[in-house]
């Protein structure tokens, strides 16, 4: 597809440029001395900073222990080469593996906790690593550090010369940067960004939130290890005081300065922050103070970092070229309403402390039908939807989907079975474009399409279906409210759902928009889509519903075809309250 191709072309262009830069730098780099040291420091740090881009920029998890992983990688190389006589690249691989595994374990144990807790645990981990490096004399050589770390040779080629080794570091850096750029455009990268922007919505789009976070953590740690391993070779001497909490802060600042969402931002930030103290040397004692002030200024005045500023200025999103795509295949395979029960909930209950938000509700959704769930505000409609999609743990009762008991499944596994939903308070992925939002939906595990081009095509078809193709390239936050609802619906549709759950799709829409929404629902109904819909607009409900379940105070008070349900006396009482017309 056009976009994929153009993305790839741009990537290749960047890559080619990068390699040219590497060669150019390696050619002009001095064989030793100040400039070489500066460049090596920048190159190896930048690899570790790319890890922060992945974990914080893409996945939104704060990590304050990148220097610990840098250190672990460096010590693996140092101990491997110096004490065990292993070849450099073997030691480097061990370093990457150790940090990758370390990151995974740290992630597995802590990532279920909330934001600032992760920050705190990572600080703790950082301090413990520093302490172990300092005190485990027998293994790490203690505070003396390890000197005489050799640089590698490969296939008989000596890579230990300053410029050649710098070239090697830059090649790694180039590869890491390319990897980071591509990661952002990959399925995994989109999943990470979805988790960052809205983890609930991500989970109901089929993203395994926890696993995605752990992977991001592991990648980040491994990149820290890679940077550290190369750092050890670059300076041939390492000691524990190079990998302290302060260094973690510096690495984090590098990422934020450059622009934590961008691989190139990380690069830019690293170069600047390696250079900044050097440029400020003329201030002598005061330069670290100025550095601190600069950090504040950067955060206040450059919220998206330097690269973000450049992007905002010079890279306006361009409309995509029109491409013909096949119309969205909407369940033509199943066709007409049938007696098959798609979703069956039995004696479902959800209590919050003493509050019975949902109380012994039964509901049966048949294939191809539009099933409305209505009731006054606070009657438990959204809670039921949350229980069905797995966001809330069931207190009692059972949820069956396609004949399978899914009561105990997490949200992403339910999505995998073909359950897609929208939210009352719109949950789109704000940091991503309209198209990327919908692609996340199309990438639902268990969808009948896979592969970059097919998912892209499916996403475009879904956008065609809701009429938002023209704005596919825009950041989703730039769209008006009503259109964001359509983005959510397109995201759900792109996942080819077996059942579509819509929570107040008409809320906040004006009359015209409501009419359009009704049209859209009608079209979906015509395609045989199974839909559960919550809405307050009775006109909308009357136009589309085949079956209505009415709730009040968490209990089902009526269930049946629209006519029956809406004329039920309890329903009228619930909706109109006791008539007080005499009082008025």
């Amino acid at each position, binding site marked *: 597809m056009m976009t994929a191709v153009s993305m790839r072309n741009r990537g290749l262009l960047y890559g080619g440029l990068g390699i040219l830069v590497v060669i150019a730098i390696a050619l002009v780099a001095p064989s030793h001395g100040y400039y070489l040291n500066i460049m090596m420091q920048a190159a190896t740090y930048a690899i570790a900073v790319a890890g922060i881009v992945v974990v914080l920029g893409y996945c939104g998890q704060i990590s304050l222990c990148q220097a610990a992983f840098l250190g672990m990688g460096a010590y693996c190389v140092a101990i491997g080469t110096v004490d065990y006589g292993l070849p450099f690249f073997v030691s480097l691989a061990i370093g990457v593996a150790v940090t990758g595994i370390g990151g995974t374990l740290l992630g597995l144990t802590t990532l279920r906790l909330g934001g*600032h*807790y992760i920050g705190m645990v990572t*600080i703790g981990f950082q301090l413990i690593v520093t302490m172990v490096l300092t005190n485990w004399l027998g293994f790490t050589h203690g505070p003396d550090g390890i000197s005489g770390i050799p640089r590698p040779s490969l296939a008989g080629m000596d890579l230990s010369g300053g410029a050649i080794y710098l070239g090697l570091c830059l090649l790694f850096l180039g590869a890491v940067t390319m990897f980071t750029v591509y990661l952002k455009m990959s399925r995994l990268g989109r999943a990470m960004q979805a988790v960052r922007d809205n983890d609930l919505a991500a989970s109901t789009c089929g993203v395994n939130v926890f696993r995605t976070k752990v992977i991001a953590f592991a990648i980040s740690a491994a990149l820290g290890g890679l940077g550290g391993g190369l750092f050890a070779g670059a300076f041939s001497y390492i000691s524990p005081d190079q990998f302290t909490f302060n260094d973690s802060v510096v690495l984090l600042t590098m990422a934020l300065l450059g622009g934590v969402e961008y691989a190139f931002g990380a690069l830019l930030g690293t170069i600047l922050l390696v250079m900044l103290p050097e440029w400020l040397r003329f201030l002598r004692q005061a330069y670290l*103070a100025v550095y*601190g002030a600069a950090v*504040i200024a*950067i955060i206040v005045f450059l*919220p998206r970092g330097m690269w973000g500023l450049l992007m905002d200025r010079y890279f306006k999103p361009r409309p995509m070229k029109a491409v013909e795509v096949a119309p969205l295949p909407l369940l033509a395979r199943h066709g007409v309403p049938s007696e098959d029960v798609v979703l069956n909930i039995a004696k479902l209950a959800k209590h919050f*402390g003493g509050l019975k938000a949902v109380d012994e509700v039964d509901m049966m959704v048949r294939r191809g039908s539009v099933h409305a769930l209505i009731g006054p505000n606070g009657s438990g409609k959204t809670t039921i939807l949350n229980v069905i999609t797995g966001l809330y743990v069931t207190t009692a009762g059972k949820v069956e989907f396609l004949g399978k008991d899914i009561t105990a499944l997490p949200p992403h596994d339910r999505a995998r079975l073909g359950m897609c939903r929208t939210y009352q308070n719109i949950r789109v992925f704000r940091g991503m474009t309209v198209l990327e939002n919908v692609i996340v939906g199309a990438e639902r595990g268990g969808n009948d399409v896979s592969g970059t081009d097919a998912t892209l095509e499916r996403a475009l078809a879904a956008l065609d279906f809701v009429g938002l193709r023209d704005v596919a390239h825009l950041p989703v936050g730039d769209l008006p409210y009503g259109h964001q609802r359509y983005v959510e619906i397109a995201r759900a549709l792109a996942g080819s759902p077996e059942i579509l759950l819509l929570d107040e799709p008409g809320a906040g829409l004006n009359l015209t928009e409501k009419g359009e929404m009704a049209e859209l629902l009608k079209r979906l109904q015509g395609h045989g889509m199974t839909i559960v819909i919550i809405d307050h607009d009775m006109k909308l409900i009357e136009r589309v519903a085949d079956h209505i379940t009415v709730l009040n105070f968490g209990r089902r008070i009526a269930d049946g075809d629209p006519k029956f349900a809406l004329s039920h006396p309890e329903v009228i009482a619930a909706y109109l309250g006791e008539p007080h017309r005499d009082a008025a």
Partner: protein
Amino acid sequence: MSMLPQLLFTGIGIGSIYAMVSLGFVLLIRSANVVNFAQGEFSMLGAYLMLILLMSFHVPYFIALVVSVILMGVFGIVFGVITYWPLRTRGQIPVIISTIGAGILLENTVLATYGPSPQVLPGVFNASGVLVGNIFMDSQYLSIICTAFVLLALQYVIFEKTVVGKKIQATSQDRETAGLLGIPVVTLIFGIFFYSAALGGLAGILVAPILFVSVGIASVVALKAFAANIIGGFGSIPGAIIGGLLIGIVETLGAAYISVPYKDAYAFIMLIAVLLVRPQGLFGERVAEKA
């Protein structure tokens, strides 16, 4: 002769310092949602202010104490205006980074101005301490413990008994609604910046006779105090105090009975253990299930 009582005394003394600094942390988290990584620098600045007043201006001890604590409070407001106010709508991480930047700025400004040599700051009492039974009670530890407990009691009275305290609690629990009720939210938040810096400064002044006045004070107390906060329960006032005392005691006993070099690790091992077993901390507020 058992070392235990002596170690407990020392542990409580050190723990009281962590608790005081931690209290400043907690209040900022609760009122403004600011995780202040420069809290340790408040202590350092307080100690330097005290030193300058005592040594350069020859101000009597207690007047110098009051003046430096008040100056620290004013500094806290300036700090809030610079590091928090422009970023207040941008979430937690940017504020964290800006307070880290402020910490670097403060530490190195002091270093560039007053030089690196540690200085001696006299304590509250002239005597070095008293022997009770076979426990030697360092006079400075005694004054720290007393101050910490007086502050604790005072804070309890202010927070639980006065209307202002209730307003502060309300602000921390729901800032928007507090504003709706006409509670001067912004004033209160900056009031907390004032108090939290003053508290940090006071902790610095009290700890400086033990640790000496140097820029290094900041890092000694800050991270432990932060850990205390998490162990006690993020944003919980009793949690900050109990967490601080716990860390002080555990690391002192740990150093005595397990290993001295790993002393600094105990707080963080405890921290990770608490987070794994009881993520909301010992006194953490009930985590509501309903999102």
